[in-house]
């Protein structure tokens, strides 16, 4: 009996492993394929095989991609714009969340709901009017053209997560501080914010992931290289090297790399952060 059970268990485990591996292969194989052909030469793509051993490993594809794809500049822009958006979203959402959940005023419920409505509005619905507005006030082709919509559309989610967290903090903590003569601003900065580390991580990840993918706004509002974001490496490059597939593959692999590396390194934090957000949501 014991042995049979054991056997069953190990068979079960193998089956589980097969299922999980199959899903893993589906999820990861396209990327393996991408890297494989990015190291070949363009003509080798026309094969019937799944993966190939390139006749000669073409590292120079990556050099071309790196230099001509403006990868460094665009990566810097992406990181900068996203980090700024995250920072602003966190500050504004903590402030507003505190005011709407802790402070005593008549309109708190209304204002909170108003800000949360933003969560339901699709970012692309503002694409056309914003273009005209930004053109009029002269901020197209500047960092503001991206920062404003990115912040505005990440704010509701941030506000939502922050307020559900703040309402779970016991009031006594603040009261002690109040007796010591702290003002509201100091309470938020010194007492509340440090308690909200996990929420901040969650909001950071959500905002980052949302905006990291965005490029319709970027491609409509930006024209010079100064603020273009990472997806442009791929977009511009495919035109520039339209007849060289291998180099196109290389630039795709190269632009995917930073996010993947960051994710793998911070895997546990990110998972935890999303988990915290998921439970609240």
């Amino acid at each position: 009996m014991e042995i049979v059970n054991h056997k069953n268990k190990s068979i079960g485990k193998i089956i589980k492993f097969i299922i999980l591996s199959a899903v893993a292969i589906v999820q990861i194989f396209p990327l393996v394929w991408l890297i494989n052909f990015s190291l070949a030469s363009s003509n080798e793509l026309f094969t019937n095989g799944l993966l190939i051993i390139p006749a000669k490993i073409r590292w120079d594809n990556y050099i071309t991609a790196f230099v001509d794809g403006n990868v460094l500049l665009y990566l810097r822009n992406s990181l900068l714009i996203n980090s700024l958006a995250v920072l602003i979203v966190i500050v504004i959402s903590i402030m507003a969340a505190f005011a709407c959940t802790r402070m005593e005023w008549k309109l708190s419920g209304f204002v909170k709901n108003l800000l949360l409505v933003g969560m339901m509005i699709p970012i692309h619905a503002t694409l056309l009017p914003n273009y005209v507005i930004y053109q009029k006030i002269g901020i197209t082709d500047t960092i503001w053209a991206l920062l404003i919509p990115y912040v505005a559309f990440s704010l509701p989610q941030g506000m939502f997560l922050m307020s559900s967290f703040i309402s779970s903090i016991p009031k006594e903590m603040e009261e002690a501080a109040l007796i010591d003569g702290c003002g509201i601003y100091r309470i938020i900065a010194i007492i509340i914010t440090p308690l909200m580390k996990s929420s901040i991580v969650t909001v950071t990840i959500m905002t980052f992931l949302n905006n990291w993918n965005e490029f319709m706004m970027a491609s409509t509002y930006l024209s010079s290289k100064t603020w273009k974001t990472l997806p442009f490496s791929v977009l511009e490059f495919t035109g520039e090297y339209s007849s060289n597939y291998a180099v196109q593959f290389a630039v795709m692999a190269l632009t995917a790399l930073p996010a993947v590396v960051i994710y793998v390194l911070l895997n546990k934090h990110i998972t935890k952060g999303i988990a915290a957000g998921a439970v609240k949501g």
Partner: protein
Amino acid sequence: MKKKLLSLLLVATMVTSLAGCSGAKSSDSASVEEKVTIRVFSNQTDRKTGQGLIEQTLFDNYVKENPNINIEVEALDDEAYKTKFKAYATGNAMPDLLNAWGQPSFLNEVIDAGLLAELDKSSYDDYGFIEGSLDGFSRDGKLYGLPRNTDVMAFYYNKKIFEENGWKVPTTYAELLALAETINEAGIVPCSMDGSDKWPLSIWMHDLIAKINGESKAMLEASVTNADFSDPSYVQAAQLLKDAVDVGLFQNGFETTDYGTARNLFANGQAAMYYMGSWEMSMATNEDVLEDVRNNLGVFAMPVVEGGQGAATDIAAWNGGGYAVSANSEVKEETIALLNYMFQPENWSKLAWENGVCMSAQDYSAYLTGDETEPQKAFTDIVVGSTSITGVTFNDLGTSEFKTISEDGSQQLVIGALTPEKFWETMAEACK
């Protein structure tokens, strides 16, 4: 450990941002003197070969000769270019020098909205522009742009594959269709087609209308104006295109194949023919094109249709791509000066020809050397021998909305969602 990672990331962000910042600054400080910046919006994304190279070379030369000028180029692929161009038009904030197509569908609305600067027609008298080539850029007798090339639509074919298999260049449309079957049997794609951009399909039809009727320019212009596409030759042309699809002339999935992929199928020897404009003649010198293809490049025009009145010399040709200047440009004069520089005959025309890139819209006969590439010679022969040209094809004769509808329609035609009759009915509807 975790903290270290985070701080490492932060540092990395800062370093890259600093690196970027300092880079930007140093270039700024060099331009302290009163520099004029001309913003160029181009559809030539590839700045290292073809027309993009010529354009960039001219810009570089101009900046060298005029140190106070700074040229900033933003380049996008055709379709993305057209979309962004319209976005710029909507925002009323055009860059200074623009790529433009001398076609009503592209230009009329923009000219009517007063977004393009008028050019002084008489100043181009000795630039050697071919007669009629400025028409596309003119409206109500005023000139708004200059054409870059004379564009001819034709088949590129791989001579080596043709010879090895004993195939002959088709002289009639029926032969072309018959050839499709033979080539398919050999396991090669007969003709590579860019169906996702849709306009090659429209041009194909117009090309056939020319073969059926001989002259086709005035006829289609009238059809678009009168919203009347009842001429039987139109349905016939649409049917002939559909026939080509049905016999498998084009690669599988051609209706969603984009420009680059279609060309690369041919450039990598996967397809025996490729229906595209003369601007692709630079394949003959492009290192990225497979050597076997590069050195065996032939060209022939759309073959005649049996029973048609047109000859093979009634060709699909027009003066399409070119440049225009924004009316609201703050540096309008400087931009026009740059444009004029580019089109002095010894610049664009000469460079384009000598590099085997394209045929300019100007008289380039002075630059013939006899050492031209095969496609260069073939296209020259086609143009010199032509008895009539189509001019701008029908999809580009109406408004931009008509263009969208007609090109979407030609795609629906080839996938069988519209019958040839229904297709032209839709066109008539769209013109109203």
